[in-house]
Structures are given as structure tokens and as C-alpha cells.
């Protein structure tokens, strides 16, 4: 493979990255050459994003080396990244965002070139994208923003992109657009470009990757041509992922009386677990937020709330970052346990201790700051906050984001148990498997309910069908 050797873009040799005691990456050796299309997989926190940041120069390695063959820096070597979290400037237009990453674009008329360049890139990757180069980014939908970001990643920007790293680029794209992207990646690699593609959707990985690298706890545990993996084989190597859906259907209690029906058609009975599904961004989160806000007050303090909320987007909706774990849990029960307006500190401590053990928050002291917890454990705290209250209705907005499989199983069991005790759950999830565990599922499309599924009708196919199907029909 002398040919291959010549076209090396980047080579990592025992590259490691430590954050304090945490070994995010623990010695990784890897090389990427022109024409490579690498699929990178691994559990949450395996170190994928950290690896990406080392390659693109965003982080310096704690030890080991990274060598670019095309120049001193990632930028010069033509290495580009599309980040996991959206990283456009929302107050700028699409073309102006290209300018931010393309500093060579200067002088009078830069705007025209920027427009032409981003338009060409968008047209090439996503035909019929319908995005104006002069649209301000905060006026675009999440999927459109993601498309813009990808298009900027592949745009020439003065040099030519040689390696594009895509960190979970499809998480907010629907299947059709994701397909366009995958097709483009294949074309790009065929024409001599290289891609590192990260996704938790193994199907996509198998569709594009020529080589698959499996990361686990900061190490490469396997690396093969993609043909050499089977789906199950890959899952096994990644560890963790246990066969799911098997233990779901427990004995379900009899459906209680209906306690909720919204104008939109969302309904729930006492003790029921209701799932919300459909493509991301089709109004599920808004429906839940609206429901929560309409059933709780910004003015009236309540001793026992009617409804509680479990956030999935932790920094935006869930975590009170300056506080301890204890205070983060107890905020929902403060008013209930208070005596004459004073915080009942004994009750608070007792409740926090109880939930720490019940839900297994991994910490030695609930007085530690919440930010000392890992993401999954922070999420458990949010569950504890909601479940500790006595609210009969629990609203969950994609609460399993970044939660590992073991924890998920614990939480599923707990939700089941609480439902059996008569609590009602409204559960929006982007993972179809989770939704399939519910008693009833509402599928959303274009901010409307396109299907209501119950019993045996709840299946991945039916949900997908309701998410897309009528698009052609209508």
C-alpha cells in the first residue's frame, strides 16, 4: 500500500488526553489517508469527541504526537470539523458564517464570493435544500442549521478540504437528508478526500465507512474494514449494549381514568406511560413544554405540584449549576416540606439521601457540587428531582440523552414501578426503542399528531411510517 502511505493526512502516535485524573483518551494510534472513510463508534464518553478535538487541533494532547503531512497545523493541512453541538453564530447569515471559518475571504466583494461558495457547497451536498445564503441562522430550523454547518465543513474555503470530521452530524437530520449526506461522503472519499464519521446509528456507519474504529474508555479496542464487522459483532466490541426491549413488557396495570387531554389531541390515563415520537424538531418538545407551562404557574407557589418536568437538555433546562446535588434534588419538594416558609433541612437531607441510594447517584456526598457528576449521573439527579415530588404527572423531554445503558435500565424499571403506583408519564424520546416501551405512542409530524399507536401497533416500522409516510401522500 505504498500509494496509501504517500497520501497520509494525519498520523497519531500514542496520543493521550487527560482531564485531571480522567483519562479521556488513553494512548491512541491512528492514521488517516486520502480516500479513507472511517467510521468511529463507541459508548457515551468513550472519547470520540476528544479524539476529534485532538485531530483538529482544538485540544493539545497530554502525551503522544500528532503529525500532519500537509502542513504544521490542522488548518493548513486541510482538516475540517463539524462539531457535535451546533457551532454557528446565530446572529449572522449563512454566508457570513462561512466567512468566520474562511479568514482568507477579504476585501470588497467578499460577500459575493462567500454566497457563491456556500451555495455551491449546499447545492452539491443537499440538492433542493431551499436555504438562502442570506438567511440569518437563527431563523433556520435545527436541521437546516446542521446542513449549513456540514456545507461549511465541505466548502473549499481557500484550500481544499482533505479530511472532514463529522461528529454525530445526522442527529438532527431526517432520513432523506441524512441519505444525501451519506451519498456525498461516499463521493467525497471516492474523489480522494478523507472522512471521519461519528454516529451512534450503526446503520449509517455500515453504509459509508470503509474502515470502522471502535473506541472504548479512551482506547481503540478494534479496527477493521467495515466488511469484516457484522452489526452484532460491532455491538459486542463496543461492550455495554445489552439486548434491549426484551424485558420491557412487564405486567401492565389496568388503564386508569383519563387525566389529560389537550387540544392537540395528546391524551393520557392515570398510571399510563405515553410516548411521543417522530422526527426531531417536529413539535414534540414544544408540546410538552407548553403542557408543562400551562399546568404550572409562574406566579402561584404550590405545595404539591400537578406536574413535574425531567429535562434532557441539562444545561439549558435542567441543572442549577452553582448548587450541590442535594439542593438540585430538593428544589421540587421545598414547598411541600417547608415549615412557615423555612426550608426543612432534615426532610431535605433525608429525601436527597433516599434518592441517592434509590436511583444510585454515584457520589460520596450529596453535598458535592452537581457539576462534579458525570452527565449520566447529573441526569439521574434530574430524575430524582422529579420523582421525589408527589406530582401525578411526569413530563420527560428526551431524558436519556447521554445516559449509558446500565443507567437506562435502572431508570426504565423505576418508571415502570412509579407508573404502577398510579403516576402518569409523558415521554418524548428520539430513540425509537425507548418509545416502543410505552403503553401508548403519539407520533408527531409538522407540529401535529400524525398517529396514535397502542398495544401491538407500537413498532419501529409503524412509527417511522407515521413520521414520514404521508409526505408523498399529501
Amino acid at each position, binding site marked *: 500500500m505504498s500509494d496509501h502511505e504517500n497520501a497520509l493526512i494525519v498520523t497519531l502516535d500514542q496520543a493521550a488526553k487527560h482531564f485531571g485524573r480522567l483519562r479521556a483518551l488513553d494512548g491512541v494510534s491512528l492514521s488517516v489517508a486520502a480516500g479513507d472513510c472511517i467510521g468511529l463508534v463507541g459508548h457515551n464518553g468513550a472519547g470520540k469527541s476528544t479524539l476529534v478535538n485532538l485531530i483538529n487541533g482544538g485540544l493539545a494532547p497530554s502525551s503522544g504526537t500528532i503529525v500532519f503531512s500537509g502542513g504544521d497545523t490542522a488548518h493548513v493541512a486541510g482538516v475540517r470539523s463539524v462539531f457535535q453541538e451546533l457551532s454557528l453564530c446565530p446572529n449572522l447569515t449563512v454566508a457570513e458564517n462561512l466567512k468566520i471559518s474562511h479568514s482568507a475571504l477579504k476585501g470588497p466583494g467578499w460577500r459575493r464570493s462567500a454566497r457563491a461558495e456556500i451555495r455551491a457547497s449546499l447545492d452539491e451536498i443537499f440538492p433542493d435544500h431551499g436555504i438562502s445564503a442570506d438567511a440569518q441562522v437563527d431563523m433556520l430550523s435545527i436541521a437546516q442549521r446542521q446542513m449549513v454547518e456540514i456545507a461549511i465543513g465541505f466548502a473549499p474555503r481557500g484550500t481544499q478540504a482533505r479530511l472532514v470530521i463529522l461528529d454525530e452530524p445526522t442527529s438532527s437530520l431526517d432520513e432523506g437528508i441524512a441519505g444525501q449526506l451519506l451519498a456525498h461522503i461516499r463521493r467525497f472519499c471516492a474523489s480522494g478526500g478523507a472522512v471521519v464519521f461519528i454516529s451512534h446509528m450503526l446503520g449509517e456507519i455500515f453504509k459509508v465507512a470503509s474502515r470502522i474504529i471502535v473506541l472504548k474508555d479512551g482506547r481503540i479496542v478494534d479496527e477493521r474494514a467495515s466488511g469484516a464487522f457484522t452489526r452484532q459483532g460491532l455491538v459486542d466490541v463496543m461492550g455495554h449494549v445489552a439486548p434491549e426491549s426484551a424485558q420491557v413488557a412487564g405486567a401492565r396495570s389496568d388503564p386508569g381514568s383519563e387525566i389529560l387531554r389537550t387540544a392537540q389531541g395528546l391524551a393520557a390515563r392515570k398510571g399510563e406511560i405515553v410516548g411521543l415520537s417522530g422526527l426531531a424538531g417536529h413539535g414534540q418538545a414544544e408540546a410538552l413544554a407548553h403542557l408543562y407551562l400551562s399546568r*404550572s404557574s409562574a406566579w402561584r407557589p404550590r405545595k404539591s405540584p400537578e406536574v413535574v418536568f425531567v429535562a434532557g437538555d441539562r444545561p439549558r433546562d435542567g441543572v442549577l449549576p452553582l448548587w450541590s446535588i442535594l439542593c438540585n434534588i430538593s428544589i421540587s419538594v421545598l414547598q411541600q416540606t417547608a415549615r412557615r416558609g423555612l426550608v426543612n433541612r432534615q426532610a431535605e437531607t433525608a429525601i436527597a439521601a433516599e434518592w441517592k441510594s434509590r436511583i444510585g447517584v454515584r457520589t460520596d456526598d450529596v453535598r458535592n457540587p452537581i457539576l462534579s457528576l458525570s452527565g449520566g449521573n447529573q441526569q439521574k439527579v434530574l430524575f430524582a428531582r422529579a420523582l421525589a415530588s408527589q406530582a401525578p404527572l411526569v413530563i420527560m423531554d428526551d431524558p436519556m440523552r447521554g445516559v449509558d445503558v446500565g443507567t437506562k435500565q435502572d431508570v426504565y424499571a423505576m418508571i415502570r414501578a412509579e407508573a404502577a403506583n398510579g403516576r402518569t408519564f409523558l415521554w418524548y424520546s428520539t430513540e425509537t426503542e425507548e418509545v416502543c416501551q410505552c403503553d401508548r405512542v403519539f407520533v408527531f409530524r409538522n407540529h401535529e399528531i400524525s398517529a396514535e399507536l397502542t398495544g401491538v401497533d407500537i413498532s419501529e416500522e409503524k412509527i417511522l411510517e407515521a413520521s414520514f409516510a404521508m409526505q408523498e401522500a399529501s
Partner: protein
Amino acid sequence: MTPLNLLAKPWIWSWLAASAAFGLTLGLTSGRGAGELAYAALSFGAFAAIVGLGQMLVITLGPGNVDLSIPATMTLAATLALKAMSSNPGTAFLGLGIALGVGVAAGLANYALIFLLRLPPIIATLAASLVYQSFAIWSNRGLRIKPPAGLADFATGRFLGLPNVAWVGLALAIVVWVVLERTVWGRMLLATGQNLRVARLAGVPVELVRATTYVLVAVFASLAGYLLASFSGGAALNMGAEYLLMSIAVVVIGGTSIAGGNSNVPGVWGAALFMFLVVSMLNSYGAGAGVRNVLTGTIIIAIVIAASTRRVRA
């Protein structure tokens, strides 16, 4: 607590700075007049501390929250209260009631502008303050009416060696501290200040919290105005002017985070004493207005840098 731990407390810097200013001033007199200076600092620091405590609560509500109507509220409350009392004996509580009533009204008006008209608090309270100022002018045309003798004696008097106004300021500080540390409302305020959206989704009645906070700051301001007018022998139309920047300065020098969700009661008192003592020190050393301002500004920035870099490291 080890000294190093103590240095990581954001409020310690204001106390260190206040002590340094105190020491330097006394250095000039080789130690004489310590009691006198401390007494003056406590008296005048009390007014800054009272308005500072209110401003601290508002700033705790998070970025963008601040009350610029404090001076006008002080003036209006004092003017109306002193006019109502018109130096008659036995009317002190009537005056107090009127002052606090003005505070409640001003706070509600401020919050109404913020909530109903969605004005940024900076602009809303600024605009409202001009209206309050006009009210004060219209109601009394700047006449300085004397407080009733009993009230004046109380405001300038002392108890157990400390000025009465300092006792009031101290009591309020303790109340605010207890409210923040121990009450449900305090918790809800701190939650709202960290992230309004999170607090709302966690079941906190955030608008109620915001409304009560804006009322509280105005009530504190009106109380300070009432006491200051009683202390200095009458309400003047410009009596609150210096408390605009002062109220913000004592909060931030005191170590309260401008990002919200984090209050610092002891720091407010430390900073209030510091703001008085630093001027006294510079006056005592014969610094002119120019030098005095430059040094005051520099010291404020130095304290903020010291407190914030310590905090990051800690």
C-alpha cells in the same frame, strides 16, 4: 477554616480592603480617633449597606437585572414621609408607613414595566426613576422639612456604642442572610438567578420571585431614604444621587456574582464600609477630587480582579 480557605471567600476582599483603608487613615493620626472613624463608617456605611442589600437581591436574579431607580425611590419616599410628618412629634411610624408604601408602589411599578412591557430592567428602572423624581419635585418642591425630633434622635443616636442606623442595617443584613440561606423563597430566588428557565421547569414560581425581589429592593431603598433624611435633618431632592453607583459597587465589590444566583451578604457590609473609608482615607491624605476618583476606581478593579482570580483557582 485555614487562611487560604478564607482567601477563597469572595467577600473577604472587601473586608481586607476596608481594614486597609481604616488602618491607613489611622496611620495619619498614629491611632487616635479609631473609635470615631469606626463610628462614622458604621453610620454612613449603614445606608449604603441597606440599599446594597436590596440591589444584591436584584442582581442575584441574574444577568441584566439591576435597579437604577434606587436614588429616585429614596428621594420620593423620604420627601413624602417627611412632608406627611411635617416635624410633628409622634408621627414617626406614620412616616415609616408612607415611606415603605412608596417603596412597594415603586417596586410594583418597576416590575410592571419589566413584565408587562418587556422592557430591559436597566431601561425600565431608569425611565421610571425620572418619573419618581418628578413626583418628588411636584410634591414638595425641594423644601427640606425637619424630621420629628424623636425620629431625628433615633436616627442619629446610638445603642450599646453602635449607631442605631447601623443596628438597623445589621438587622436587615441578618434577615436577608436568613432569607437567602434558610427560607424557601431564598432558595427560589437563587434558583431563578442561576437559570430562569431551569427554575421555571423545576416548579419555581419565577415571576412571583422576580416581582417580590423588585418590590424588596424598592422597599429597602425607601427605608434607606427615610432613615437618611431623618439622620441628616431633612429630605433633599438630590439626596439619593450618590447611591446609584454606590449600590452596584458595594454588591460587586462584596463578591456577589454579577452572573446571578450567588449572593454575598457579609461582602455588602464590608464593601459599604470600604466605600466610606476609602474616601475618608483619601480625604485625610489631602487627595483632591481627581486623585480620589482615580484611586477609588483602581482599587475597585483591583478588588474585583483579586476576588475573581481567586475564585477561579479555588
